[in-house]
């Protein structure tokens, strides 16, 4: 592509970024609003943040979402990395095409269908709904995202690195441990963080597969949002945005380091 921006290009970028960031910025600003009226500025205050801490149900949901994110991201990383390895490193095997499809379909499946179908499964096999059913549901769709990231790393790295390791006397298993794993590790870490944020974000699938005592943070926020905009929600949203921003920066830096060494 030819470089150099025309005035039209600059305008598109500025307008596009403003469109993307202004609503979030407004939300963050109004979380520090002293007034309970969400659209009238009543002075700066951290009142609503202090209020969050004493909001028992909200804190409990935040704790559940955090645990859920860690558990499901860890499982999803194991399964997703195995899926990526199976599709890129093990050559042809029976059912490879089916596995490739199963690994792709959850990425594009509307959440509402994933949620409904998993709920029906849990009912049919008589599994009581709660923390673990949401965890299973999250692992199922996030592992495919992990696989996409790990797979792109596996595909792009020079196969002769593994051959070089074997040529230098490493057994195939040692070559995998000493060369493949360290090189893919940043992608695996990025995959974990992606799975974590996806789990932290999810409302629809959790709503279907959750049960009593396992109300996640998005479910809690959603039930309050339906009643209207409140400064408390602005405050908790701001905190979530901050967490995600930090995580994304960590992923970006991790992948950047991977690219510069890869």
């Amino acid at each position: 592509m030819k470089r150099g921006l025309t005035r039209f290009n600059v305008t598109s970028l500025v307008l596009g970024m403003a469109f993307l960031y202004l609503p979030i910025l407004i939300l963050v600003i109004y979380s520090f609003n002293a007034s309970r009226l969400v659209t009238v500025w009543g002075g700066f205050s951290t009142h609503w943040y202090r209020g969050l801490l004493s909001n028992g149900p909200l804190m409990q949901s935040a704790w559940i979402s955090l645990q859920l994110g860690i558990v499901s991201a860890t499982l999803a990383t194991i399964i997703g990395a195995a899926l990526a390895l199976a599709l890129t490193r093990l050559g042809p095997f029976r059912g490879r095409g089916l596995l490739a499809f199963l690994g792709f379909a959850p990425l594009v499946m509307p959440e509402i269908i994933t949620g409904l179908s998993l709920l029906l499964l849990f009912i049919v096999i008589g599994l009581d709904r709660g923390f673990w059913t949401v965890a299973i549901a999250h692992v199922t769709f996030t592992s495919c995202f992990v696989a996409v990231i790990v797979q792109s790393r596996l595909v792009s790295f020079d196969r002769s690195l593994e051959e070089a390791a074997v040529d230098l006397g490493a057994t195939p298993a040692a070559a995998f441990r000493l060369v493949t794993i360290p090189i893919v590790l940043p992608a695996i870490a990025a995959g974990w963080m992606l799975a974590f944020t996806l789990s932290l974000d999810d409302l629809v699938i959790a709503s279907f597969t959750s049960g009593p005592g396992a109300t996640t943070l998005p479910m809690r926020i959603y039930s309050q949002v339906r009643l209207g905009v409140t400064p408390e929600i602005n405050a908790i949203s701001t905190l979530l945005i901050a967490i995600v921003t930090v995580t994304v920066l960590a992923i970006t830096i991790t992948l950047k380091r991977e690219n510069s060494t890869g």
Partner: protein
Amino acid sequence: MAADSPSASHAIVIRGVSKSFGAVTALEGIDLSIRKGEFFSLLGPSGSGKTTLMRIIAGFEQPDKGSLMIDGEEMAGVPPHLRPVNMMFQSYALFPHLTVAGNIAFGLRQQRLGRPAIEARTAEMLKLVQLEALAGRKPHQLSGGQRQRVALARALARGPKVLLLDEPLGALDKRLRQETQAELKRIQLSTGTTFVVVTHDQEEAMALSDRMAIMMDGKIIQVDAPGTVYDRPANRQVAAFVGDLNQFPARVEAGPDGVLLASAKGIPGKIAIAGSAVPQTEECWLVLRPEHMRLAALADGSADHWMACRVEDRAHLGAQVAYRLCLPDGRIVLAQAPAQAPEASQMAGAAILVGFRAADARVLR
């Protein structure tokens, strides 16, 4: 080659090796013996099977038929990590997560040598390739030439019986190539390791090798020293691959006193050929190297056969001037003359004579 016996003097002995990938035949009936301490090149155009042959030696591919012995031991069933050969990859395949020293020590660690032994050997290798100062760098912090030297040191660290080099100079620019050629020769001599280079660059192969094998279409056409391949090529394809060539369709007949006489299209008279393996009945070619062509205004004793021609184009190459000459029948002849020679001043369009000595002409299939 059949005279070579798999003896203690050979690093590699290949007998009847064939390999196909699906319907594509990559190698067909390869016989090859490489002597210990030799600098050997596998030279051929891409798709000639040279890379496949090297990967069979390294153990990354299994031959469909035939046998391979390295240092007197049969290699069938021996996995790559147990073979006494190491390879310098075309991409260098340096481990991006390890330092220069870590890369060089990788193979030594696999041998489970003690830490002091590994460190000593790594230091020795760093010295050999003059990279002591960069031991702590990561590969992405190195220049192309430095990476090449790390790859070389890493492959040599384990003291392999045979070092395989896949297009070792391919990724370097022209100036660096010449330095590196000398460097490779120096290291090969000082370590006494057998070097097997795969390349498609005939200049590189000629400059480096003690002997070379010319490969085409999965077969070895000729194995000889570089000078012999250039002067006495096995066929016209080999002759054209290792240098520029003038070719004339010809026929051979028996002359008096056991001399063979060749008659070539466009060349007046019959050319007395010293020796030729080509049967008299067969279609064949008379070939001449550009540097064997003589240019003159009048026919003199410097050549046996002269042809009238017109200068089509000339290019100054420095010490030499290269000519494209056009014969009356439209055939193009390449010729070279020293830049100082009086005939080198011919301009495009000039009429001139081009000639050659019968002793320089070859008849090839």
